């Protein structure tokens, strides 16, 4: 029966090629626009580190004075840590790392070439194990190097290649800003999107991957420039180590629920202790522990423009579907005579309903195929936008499947009402008119 209805549907569609083309185009456009925006949203909300994200947590404590504006125009300053707090929190965690983004001037080995600016991270020894970076050559630095403020650096594959070509980079010297560093390792290229570990208040959630990593203590010693949000409320002689300057990010690894509970308790206890010492002024209950995905949600990385475009696309899809309903209704009712003959020959209402339902689904399938093409074109144009997230806008298999499902579902839903109306046609009246 299915094959027969499919054949009927094909014939009917071929009889009115203009109307058919119109309906397919309407569904295709609506679905294409919606899927473009849904895909952008999907890649922005994706898990940047699927293998490890379940065990990564971002602590949050609130060292700001009471009078300090909690949410200034650059974001929440308490989302970052002061040096003493970061070190105290790391000491308690099994595995963890403190970090800050930096933008340094890299001097090529060849003195004739111009130096260039690159983005990287200053961090502690635990960083590489914590996020699971793999090394092509050499290794990361040890906690002892952190202690010793060693002048060492780990390069990304790309930067190592740019500086040294095919030659072995480990052991070579490279000049960053005004100091010489010894290369001790080269990582495989690593670019989680969104860049969850970067200073989120600077809204740099999507962008260029880090090209180098060097010890945080060394960067503090050399007073290298920090690219993220820095908020200070106390004059201090300690510079970056001041207890009154938030600028660091801290990530910790917690393996199970018990550890999470214990660490959360530790954060509250630590805040309470600091409060007793007179350092913290805000309630200890402000201490929090975010999972990786929870943290991304907290930081609201999806720009308002993208959400607006999604709403726009969905509104457009609604207009298209309403249009399809009207057209299908007109089309099906025009065939009242044909329906009546079939009904007089013994077809049940259910059969008529099924026949038109299949015709709607067929239109939906064609529209879905067109929608995929339009969405690909849409994503291509998104990738040419100047926004940082643009480069990651690609459709994966699940979104591809969703496109077809959405198109077929949409058109079947749109076809429900017209098919039902067609199946209610009174055969006697129509037959008389034939």
């Amino acid at each position, binding site marked *: 029966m299915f094959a027969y209805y499919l054949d009927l549907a094909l014939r009917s569609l071929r009889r009115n090629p203009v109307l058919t083309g*119109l309906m397919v185009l309407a569904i295709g456009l609506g679905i294409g626009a919606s899927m473009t925006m849904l895909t952008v949203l999907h890649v922005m909300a994706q898990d940047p580190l699927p293998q490890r994200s379940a065990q990564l947590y971002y602590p949050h404590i609130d060292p700001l004075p009471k*009078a300090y504006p909690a949410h200034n125009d650059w974001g929440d300053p308490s989302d970052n840590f002061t040096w003493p707090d970061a070190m105290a929190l790391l000491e308690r965690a099994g595995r963890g790392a403190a970090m800050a983004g930096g933008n340094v001037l890299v001097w090529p080995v060849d003195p004739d070439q*111009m130096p260039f600016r690159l983005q990287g991270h200053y961090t502690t020894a635990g960083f590489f194990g914590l996020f699971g970076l793999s090394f092509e050559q050499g290794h990361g630095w040890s906690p002892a190097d952190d202690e010793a403020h060693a002048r060492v650096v780990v390069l990304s594959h790309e930067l190592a290649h740019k500086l040294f070509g095919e030659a072995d980079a480990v052991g070579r010297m490279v000049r960053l800003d005004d100091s010489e560093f010894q290369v001790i390792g080269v990582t495989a290229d690593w670019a989680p999107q969104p860049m969850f570990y970067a200073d989120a208040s600077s809204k740099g959630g999507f962008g260029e991957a880090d090209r180098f990593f060097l010890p945080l203590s060394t960067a503090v010693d050399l007073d290298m420039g920090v690219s993220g949000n820095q908020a200070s409320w106390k004059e201090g002689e300690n510079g970056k180590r001041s207890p009154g300057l938030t600028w660091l990010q801290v990530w910790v690894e917690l393996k199970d629920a018990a550890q999470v509970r214990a660490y959360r308790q530790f954060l509250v206890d630590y805040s309470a202790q600091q409060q007793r010492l007179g350092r913290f002024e805000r309630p200890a209950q402000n201490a929090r522990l975010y999972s990786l995905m929870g943290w991304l949600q907290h930081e609201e990385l999806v720009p308002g423009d993208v959400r607006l475009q999604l709403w726009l696309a969905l509104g457009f899809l609604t207009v298209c579907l309403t249009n399809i309903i009207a057209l299908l209704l007109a089309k099906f009712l025009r065939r009242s005579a044909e329906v009546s003959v079939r009904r007089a020959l013994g077809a049940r209402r259910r059969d008529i309903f099924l026949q038109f339902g299949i015709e709607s689904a067929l239109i939906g399938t064609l529209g879905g195929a067109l929608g995929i093409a339009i969405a690909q074109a849409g994503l291509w144009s998104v990738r040419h936008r100047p926004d940082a997230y643009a480069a990651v806008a690609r459709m994966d298999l699940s979104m591809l499947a969703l496109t077809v499902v959405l198109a077929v579902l949409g058109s079947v839903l749109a076809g429900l009402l017209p098919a039902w109306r067609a199946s209610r046609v009174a055969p006697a009246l129509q037959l008389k008119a034939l």
Partner: protein
Amino acid sequence: MQIRPILAALRRHRLATLLISLEVALACAVLCNACFLVAQRWELIQTRSGVDESSLAMVMVHGFEADQGKDLNARMLAGLRAVPGVQSVNLISQVPFGPQTGAAGISHDQGSFKRKIGVVDFVLAGPGTFQALGLELVAGRLPKVGDYSPATNFAPADAQVLVSRSLAEHAWPGESPLGKEFWCDKLHFRIIGVVDHFARARPRDWGSQAVEWTVFTPTLPGGSLAGTYLLRAKPQDLPRVLRDARNAVAKIAPDVVLDQENSRTLVDLRASYFKADRIMIDLLIGVIATMLCVTALGIVGLASFWVGQRQKQIGVRRALGATRGDILRYFQTENFLIVSFGIALGMVLAFGLNLLLMSHYELPRLPLYYLPVGALALWGLGQLAVLAPALRAAAVPPVVATRSV
């Protein structure tokens, strides 16, 4: 034209009528709001910088120590002024649509933020920069030689400044801002003049009210004021002058690095700063156009179907003496009624959608005149769409009435 028979006919096609009206209503709601969004973005793109953009360019260098600033400035100013076609080269810390270097919170009181004014951009500028920018003074006086003070910690500790009119009206509403003081933590500022317009470096990041919250700070060269230079040339010469200036930097100061990305004309900087908004406008216009097309095609489809269905009735009417014009007008009036019904619903929807958008985005209320304009557009669209099917209906000959009865 009698409306009652049309209404009676429509009542027999309640569902289809309702659907097309609904589509018109949705289209009306999306159309009004999308047009409003386009207008908002357009206004943003048109942000007045207050400076002579077409004759200005910025040259920026990095990679020097703070104590080299003074020496670097002297070399760069002399070297760049030697480039043929240059009218002037002056020191500045930031220009509209370039990188932001000095945004900070200011207040009416010293050392605390209890009587906060807001976050403003401090534009440090050397002698002659005011004239080079082409800023328009509306009150007070220009900075004199003695007004330029040294800055080491991003801004001078005690400075005579000029503010934009928009900032003056925000901080001292209804008062003359001349002689007024404000603080940035421990840094002290006194106002000597007011400029008409002067946009901050990243105007769209700070909300529509704060686009021009800018403090023009006369500063002595060196310290915080080094490494960024404002080039002025005739608009037609500017691209060549900038290219020559960029090439000259390597010879003037081989020890520093030219910022390739930001050493551009102000026109270029503006274009790339607003690129995302331009794309959004294109996108919105694209969606509006496609949506109107789809709506029109829906109307065409349904009207054609009705014309086909009513062939016989049309023939009977023609046989009874109705003219072609009568038939044409019948379908036009019918379309007008359907669209009107949709528009009535659409206005309510448009308003609701606007409220929804307002609650999620920083967006003002939809001005009421958008509604009649949107309504007119949809009426026009409806009449245009129905014209072809209606003409076909008018062409039905009376003889149809006699066939196959």
